[in-house]
């Protein structure tokens, strides 16, 4: 019979299937990060330690995850409107599985996108430190799991008010992104901005990714980044599972 794990697997593989059937969809949500990579990175000043890409690429990897994952709730929103979410609610699938399976699927495009960005950047002088990058992506996955869950929560709360979902998502997206120092270093900014940045969990994730992608595995930022990512992951799942139970 079924248990929470088989149920989660059922939901996870259902979510993943359209992506596997049409892998190109993974690239769609990457358009903006790729634009930044192509048009913004060349503006960065040359630094002593090598290519500015070394500093910029980890930020773009996180950005790509942020764009794709924060939007993912819109898929659920659409399924709530067409009726397939309701159909699944009538099956014996356990309610946590309906959320966790969906959120877990977010890890797949994150890994694929990170790999794609790295591959694209290597010819332009980006140096890959494989171990660090892999650890970085594991940490990022924990973050995305939570972010995806929060995006689904937002979808469940929005119900048929699609505008509400997009307003909240867009309103939060750019402050999170800019305050994490993804495009420009926060250290050069005014004090108030730096203070705000400290309250953004994403800042710690971005810092950790920068160190890890440069092969600096034992940096303190790895620990703080892991804590921030796991905290977001746990919080997201907790809130999301509660929301899914309540929507029942």
């Amino acid at each position: 019979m079924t248990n929470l794990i088989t149920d989660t697997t059922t939901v996870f593989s259902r979510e993943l299937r359209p992506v596997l059937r049409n892998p190109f969809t993974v690239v769609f949500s990457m358009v903006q990060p790729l634009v930044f990579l192509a048009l913004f990175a060349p503006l960065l000043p040359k630094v002593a330690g090598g290519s500015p890409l070394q500093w910029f690429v980890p930020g773009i990897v996180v950005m790509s995850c942020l764009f794709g994952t924060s939007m993912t709730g819109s898929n659920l929103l659409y399924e709530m409107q067409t009726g397939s979410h309701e159909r699944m609610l009538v099956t014996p699938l356990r309610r946590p599985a309906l959320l966790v399976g969906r959120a877990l699927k977010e890890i797949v495009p994150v890994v694929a996108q990170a790999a794609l960005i790295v591959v694209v950047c290597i010819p332009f002088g980006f140096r890959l430190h494989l171990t660090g990058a892999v650890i970085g992506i594991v940490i990022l996955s924990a973050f995305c799991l939570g972010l995806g869950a929060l995006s689904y929560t937002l979808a469940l709360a929005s119900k048929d008010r699609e505008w509400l979902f997009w307003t909240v998502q867009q309103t939060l997206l750019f402050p999170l992104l800019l305050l994490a120092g993804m495009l420009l270093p926060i250290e050069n900014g005014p004090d108030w901005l730096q203070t705000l940045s400290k309250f953004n969990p994403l800042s710690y994730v971005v810092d950790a990714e920068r160190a890890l992608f440069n092969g600096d595995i034992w940096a303190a930022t790895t620990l703080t980044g892991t804590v921030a990512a796991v905290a977001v992951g746990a919080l997201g799942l907790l809130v999301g599972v509660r929301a899914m139970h309540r929507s029942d």
Partner: protein
Amino acid sequence: MIETHELTKHFKSKKALVKAVDGIELTVAAGELVALLGPNGAGKSTTLRMLTTLIPPTSGTARVAGFDVVRHQREVRQRIGYIGQGNGAGHSQRGRDELVSQGRSYGMKVADARRRAAELIDSLDLGEVADRTVSTLSGGQRRRLDIAMGLIHAPELLFLDEPSTGLDPQNRANLQEHIIDLRRRRDTTIVLTTHYLDEADSMAERVIVVDHGRIIADDTPERLKATHVGDKIILGFEHETDAAAAASRIPHKLQRYGRELRISVVGAPQLVPGILDDLRVAGLPAASIEVTRPTLDDVFLTLTGRSLREGGAAPESADDIELVEV
């Protein structure tokens, strides 16, 4: 198969309390095909949503397939199939994939789910479209796919919420055939809601008329019509005097309009030959005859004073206002 007691669902709109379902007592035996008939906002869908565990009742109880819908949701869900008003299959998915996932949701093994999916694709005539993205299918194809999804685990009890809404007449007829066929071959208990009178009339052995959240009639379509409306026989005569003389001979409730008699009876087709014979023998032969049989709409009209055909929505239609569960 279904047993409810004082099943009630109230919603709160801005100020007023909407009694969407107001104390429904419903018993459905195994193998029945039952139609819930009523205008939009009558409480049909809300009743179905409670019976399928989608929303909890405000008060009252319901046992479905042997289990309580609140305390044993999973057991109920395992045993029922549900085909809602929307599309069960995700629009970005492929039909066959969705069928297999659906089978997995009920704990079927992958191989079993695949086999069963292939069977249903075949019997619902979906072979050509099962491996296409759902969003590219026509309305009728999607609806058949929905039916297949609801049947993947061969449930003993199947709920259909407005199954033929939005379909053209041919697809509607096709769908009705599938449902009747399912009933005949598998003995599945079927409960459907509809606001199409002809659908309830032609398919269901039992029609439950719902209005303002209450059951106002519950019987076979034939008996509902006989009990609440009855047939009309309209006889025309050459002369008014013949009509008047004939009126005194006919032992049924009637009214005379000039040369015309309007007779209200139950079972007109059986009574007409006798009446005509009697009149001929008495030298009062009818010049014309017309028999009108009632529709379920006449039944609804008699029961509520409103016609279903004209929309006839209950004043506080539950679909139009933002509602909060109570």
